[in-house]
């Protein structure tokens, strides 16, 4: 039977949820306008006042915030509460550009942990569970978020943080952990190590895993589920909006329910900023309607997703988002079709190739061309030209099924795809040079 942490909210009727969002949005816009000069300026420039925002239907009138705004406003420019009322900061890893610093009041922390409690409950967690949290602790939101959610649910919480995998497994066995929270790649590694150490799933009591903070495929999900003998649930979030728990997966495992009482989600066209209808693929935008210290309005996540309100078998009425399909920064428009390198990567992995590839887009005779170079692997190689050409055709057909447009696939020897600073250059768009 499906368990809920907050059934009233999670299964609320659409009308009631909209009413709740309307009230909270109106109040939030007033709070931000009065306390965040940076955003007030953006609203003034757009000629929007808090009075113009009467319900969620007016959301589109508000200006967007982007990562660039967060950098410009660093560190206090988007703060909406006095520092004396803030109790915590969390921060992004800062791999691209300046780090993002987010502030939390105690109320913000409570709501965030509550979102994580919903995720843990949806994964079957109760106060009788032992929850092993191997996300990193510290500035990264993964550890603190799930740790807090686990406390709320009342699980016996193992604040392991990441690393020292053999010790993780020893604790998992000795303390009979039933729920594992970490990144999917670390879960896969724990699974491998468990078997290398000579154990099997019979030696552990795990039943569920809550994995997020990085992209992962359905295939990876199946592998983790098999190697650890669990059901693996996805969780989504970002430091800018709080951390993990913005959305979470239920037993149906077909997308993540967004905690709409705290976050309003929109899908926009990343080029025009126009709001797209339900079911469209586009950039995910979040408006925090309950956060006090760091309430971002219409924050562009750069994640490309699809939202759906189709009835979910779990009983929740919260809107569902797909796994992010790619980043809007990476999006290519080829012959009018939105293409993400990550989609091609997914096909390669499914077809048994290493994800070492390069996409070349060009325009020849006013028509876009898509060439995909893929590094050959030993097991696909043959001494005969026709076999290799057959492999190229098969891969091209699989990519066409995924993208809807036909590429030309070229298998190339390993390590021949250009790398800069050790990272392969994924996309060469020659059209921009014209």
């Amino acid at each position: 039977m499906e368990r809920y942490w907050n059934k009233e909210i999670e299964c609320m009727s659409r009308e009631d949820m909209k009413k709740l969002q309307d009230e909270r949005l109106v109040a939030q816009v007033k709070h931000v306008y009065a306390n965040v000069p940076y955003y007030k300026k953006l609203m003034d420039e757009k000629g929007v006042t808090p009075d113009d925002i009467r319900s969620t239907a007016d959301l589109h009138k508000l200006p967007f915030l982007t990562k660039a705004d967060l950098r410009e406003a660093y560190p206090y420019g988007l703060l909406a509460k006095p520092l004396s009322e803030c109790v915590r900061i969390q921060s992004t890893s800062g791999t691209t550009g300046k780090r993002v610093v987010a502030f939390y009041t105690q109320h913000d922390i409570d709501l965030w942990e509550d979102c994580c409690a919903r995720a843990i409950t949806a994964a079957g967690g109760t106060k009788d569970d032992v929850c092993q949290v191997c996300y990193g602790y510290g500035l990264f939101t993964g550890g603190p978020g799930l740790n807090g959610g686990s406390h709320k649910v009342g699980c016996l919480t193992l604040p392991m943080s990441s690393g020292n995998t053999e010790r993780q497994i020893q604790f998992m066995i000795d303390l009979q952990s039933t729920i594992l929270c970490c990144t999917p790649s670390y879960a896969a590694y724990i699974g491998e190590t468990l078997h290398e150490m000579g154990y099997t799933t019979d030696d552990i009591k795990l039943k569920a895993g809550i994995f997020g903070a990085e992209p992962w495929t359905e295939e990876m999900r199946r592998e983790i589920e098999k190697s650890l003998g669990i059901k693996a649930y996805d969780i989504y979030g970002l430091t800018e909006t709080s951390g993990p728990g913005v959305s979470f997966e239920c037993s149906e495992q077909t997308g993540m329910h967004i905690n709409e009482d705290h976050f309003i989600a929109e899908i926009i066209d990343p080029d025009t900023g126009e709001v797209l209808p339900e079911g469209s693929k586009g950039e995910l935008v979040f408006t925090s309607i309950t956060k006090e210290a760091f309430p971002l309005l219409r924050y562009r996540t750069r994640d490309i997703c699809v939202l759906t309100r189709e009835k979910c078998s779990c009983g929740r009425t919260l809107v569902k988002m797909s796994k992010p399909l790619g980043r809007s920064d990476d999006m290519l428009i080829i012959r009018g079709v939105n293409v993400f390198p990550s989609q091609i990567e997914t096909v390669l992995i499914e077809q048994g190739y290493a994800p070492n590839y390069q996409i070349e887009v060009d325009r020849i005779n006013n028509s876009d061309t898509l060439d995909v170079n893929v590094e050959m692997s030993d097991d696909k190689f043959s001494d005969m030209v026709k076999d290799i050409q057959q492999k190229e055709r098969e891969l091209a057909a699989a990519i066409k099924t995924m993208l809807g447009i036909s590429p030309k696939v070229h298998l190339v020897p390993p390590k021949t795809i250009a790398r800069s600073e050790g990272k392969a250059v994924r996309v060469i768009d020659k059209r921009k040079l014209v």
Partner: protein
Amino acid sequence: MLIKQISIFVENKPGRLSAVTKLLAENNIDIRALSVADTKDFGILRLIVNKPDETCEALKKAGWTVSLTNVIAIGITDAPGGLSGVVECLYAANISVEYMYAFISKAEDQAYVILRVDNNDRAIEALVENNFTLLKASEVYDM
């Protein structure tokens, strides 16, 4: 009767072959025969060498994509009807030749042909029945 042939996946770019031959020279490997199949994008370099297993290892270690295939070597001057006789014999036995290439032994001034067929066992049977001279692996490697 089967000879191990090494195939290497190479870029269709100048200088790629010399990188392979240099590696072989450094490892004291002698090339007995060589052929290249080219397309617009890639090439497959096929080699018969004196030490195929070692060569394969050395190439893999250096990061090349390599495979070993069993092929047949046959002397052609002493074959009835020369090369066309070989082809006719295989055709009659319903065996497809995927590719073939010739080479010459330095010592004996003799021409040989390497045959890659779709069925080695049946090809050998047909060739032996028709009195063609097949080379043993050791004969080719130690040539």
